[in-house]
Structures are given as C-alpha cells and as structure tokens.
C-alpha cells in the first residue's frame, strides 16, 4: 500500500477528484494548505504598498491505494491537475505500513 500525496492548485481540486472517481478511487482527503516552490508566491498591492506573498493557497490531496493502482493514480492526478504553468504543484508516493478501518477494525487492502 502506498500513500499518494499531491499538492495542487485549489481550483483544480474538483477536476482531480472527478478524474480519480471515474477511475474507481473511492476516497481521499483534501486539506487547504499554503506553500511555495519555484513559483515563489506572488505580489499584492494595498494602498500603493506592494507585498510579496510567499505562501500561496494550495490544496493537499492524500489517498492510500494498493500497489497496483499507484501508477494510474499518479498519472491521473498529474494530467488532471496540470495547467502547464508554473505553480501546478507536486505528487509524491510513500510506503504505508498499516491501514485500519476504524468502524470495523479490518486491516490491509480491504480497509482502503
């Protein structure tokens, strides 16, 4: 099992979610976060004073999937979240030791 984490542009969340759902993914968690990468934030002007806003709003999407689905999910997110402009975000994959469904206590792939 793998945890797939993607940091994406907030307005892309629905597109990514719909693409994942149509590929059979049944659940995910989204968090509003702030961050910056090479894009390096943006500037805002208030009463003539220009501020560099480093941390810009992003959405962090997390989902745990079976090994066999990893490539499909990564590809789906990458395509759906892309605007081909700087600031589109990142996807990373990490190993997951255990997963437990709280309601039933079942463990492993059936708990996904």
């Amino acid at each position, binding site marked *: 099992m793998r945890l797939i984490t993607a940091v994406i542009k907030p307005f892309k969340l629905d597109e990514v979610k719909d693409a994942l759902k149509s590929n059979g993914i049944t659940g995910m968690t989204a968090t509003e976060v702030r961050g910056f990468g090479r894009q390096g934030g943006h500037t805002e002007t208030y009463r*003539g004073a220009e*501020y560099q806003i480093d941390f810009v709003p992003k959405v962090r999407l997390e989902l745990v999937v079976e090994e066999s689905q990893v490539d499909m999910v990564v590809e789906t997110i990458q395509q759906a979240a892309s605007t081909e402009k700087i600031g589109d975000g990142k996807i990373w994959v990490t190993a997951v030791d255990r997963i437990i469904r709280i309601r039933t206590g079942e463990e492993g792939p059936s708990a996904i």
Partner: protein
Amino acid sequence: MSIDTGDTAWVLISAALVLFMTPGLAFFYGGMVRSRHVLGMLMQNIFSMGIISVLWSAVGYSIAFGGEGSLIGDFSHVFLADTAGASGSIPTLAFVAFQMMFAVITPALITGATADRLKFSAYAVLISVWALLVYFPVARWVWNENGWIFSMGALDFAGGAAIHINAGVAALAVVLVIGNRIGHGSEPMPPHNLPYTVLGTGILWFGWMGFNAGSALAANSVAAQAVVNTHLAAAAGMLGWLLIERKRAGHATTLGAASGAVAGLVAITPCAGFVGGASPLIIGAIAGVLCYAALGLKSKFNFDDSLDVIAVHLIGGIIGTILLGLFASTDVNEGGFDGLFYGGGAELLIDQTVAAVAVLAYSFVVTFIIAKVIDSTMGLRVEAVAERTGLDQSQHAESAYQA
C-alpha cells in the same frame, strides 16, 4: 421659534444614521488589520460608543454648547440639566443626541493609526481625556455661536476641522509616541478581510448622509443639497483615487475604491451645506487624488500610520476645509459666506486656513502631551509578546475566528 416636526424627525433619524457609522468604521478598519487583531480593533471602536456617550451626557455637551465662553462652555448642563427646551426648530435634546454621535465617532477615528499595538486600558484613558481636553473644546470653537472660530467667520458644516483634522492630527501625535508596529516595513501586513472593509465603507457612506445633511438641523433645501453633495463627493473621490492608483500601481483595487470614497466623504464634510453644482465633484475628485498621493508621507517620514488615518482624514479634512474657502456660495446657503470663486474675495479662505491651522496645532500639541503622560505612567503600548499574539487574545481573551 416653535418646534417643527419635520425638522425634528430628520435630526432624530440623522442621530441614528451617525451612530451607525461607528460600527461601520469598526468594520472598515477591522477588515484591514491582521486577523489576530480584529477584535481589538472592533472593540476599540464600539467602546467609544460606551465611554464617550457617558462623558458627553456628563460634561461634554455642557463644555461644548453651554454658557457663553469663546474657548469652552460651562457646567450649566452637566448630566443634561436644563435641556428640556428648544434649539431653533428642534428640541434641544435632538441636538444633544445628534452631536453625541459626532463625539462618539471622532476619537474612534484615531484607532486606525494605532492598530495592532495600542493597549486597551490605555486607549480607554486616552480617548476619555482626549474628548475632555480636545474634542469638546474644539467642537465649542467651531460650532457654538460663541466659539472663537465660529465668531471669526470660518465655516465647518459637519466637521472638516472639528472632526477630521482634529482626529487626524491626534492620530499622528499618538503614533509618534507609540512607535511603529513590530515588523513594520519588513513583514507583509496585508488586510485580513477586505469584504469587511467594503461592508464598513457602505455603512459609513450611508451614515454620512445623516452626518452631513443632519447638520442642516432642519429638513430643508440645505439638507437636500448636503445629501447630493455628500453622495457626489464620495463618487468622485472613488473615481479620483482609482484613476491615480491604476496609473501609479497598475490596478484599480477594492481597497482603493473604498478608500477613495471615504476620502471624498471626508473632504465634503465641512462643505456639505455651503457648496452646490459641480463643486462636490471637484472637491471629491481632488480629495481622491491627493489623499492617495499622501499615502507616501508615512514611508517618507517613517511613521506607522497603520491604516492611513493621516492620509485620509487629516489630509482630506484639510482639503475640504481649505477648498470651502474657494467654493462656498451664499446662493446655496444664506447662512454661509461666498468663497473666492463666488465673489467673496479671500476673506473666507483666510478664515478657513486659520481654523485649520488652529485646530491642527492645538490638537497635535495637547494630544502629544496626553499620549506622553499615559505612556510614561500606565504605558500606551502592549508588550511585544502580546503584540505578536494579537490584541484579541492578549487584551480581551477572545478569538475572532475559531479554527
């Protein structure tokens, strides 16, 4: 003169309109501060509705409008004694109520300059002493028939000098004593909720109809002129600000539209019942452009007027007070004088300048002393850690927004 029900109704409604401006100002300012200070800002504004109303009924009205002195009144109306009769065509108490709302909002204007660092207890003392030593006497000078500025022949329809120059320069004095915010100039301090600021602008603009047109103290053609002037100056102020902002900084901003409208409203305040025709458009537009230009003063002289009270209220008040010397017309109001452009010569312009300078100098000096005394006794400013934590938690043990 017997009491006129129409006049009375309008002044009573105007009192309520002006009252509404103070929570409007709270939201106007509250949106511009960072989120951890928003309750501190709202509280400072609405607290003025509490403390200043009490002071007004206790001694304020009497100091401003009792007796026959040219500098201050007397104590004949302490706790509103002997106010049962009529003033002109309205009950004296209608005038007391209307003027009470002016007294409430004026010290609250200062809070925009001292945002995020003024200790609440110090603020309570500051505005109380300020009302007693500065606002009540200056209101006397400007609006009472015995007041020296009034007798000199200077005009101030609804408070260009008495309110906006007065509070604006007081804000400067307090800022010079309290110092800059931690991180000023090095950390971004963007407004946390501009929708609040737009909401506050709408409330201020709405209430300003009562502020200016209520100052006619009658439901007559001067009041109607004041409504039109007030609205047009706000509109032209917005356009003037947006034009120069877009040219200088690249975008027409929401905050710019709100600020420009308020700048226009400030500048038309002294003029509202004395000018007509295209004058409010000219006055509003000049204020929109010059108040925007005045934003640069604080960085040039390195004082942290956090929400630009000086650029908008002090400069806007000066613009309106001086321009009235040019645009006043007795065709609009027989009770006024003609300005330079309407055949009155330079006399009114000189009187207006004297009034502006006198209020500016008196308010600055006395406010500076008050602020210094508070600072060296109880302390004007919160501790550094309290400033970092935010006024909401450090001063009031509350949070505006629960996570």
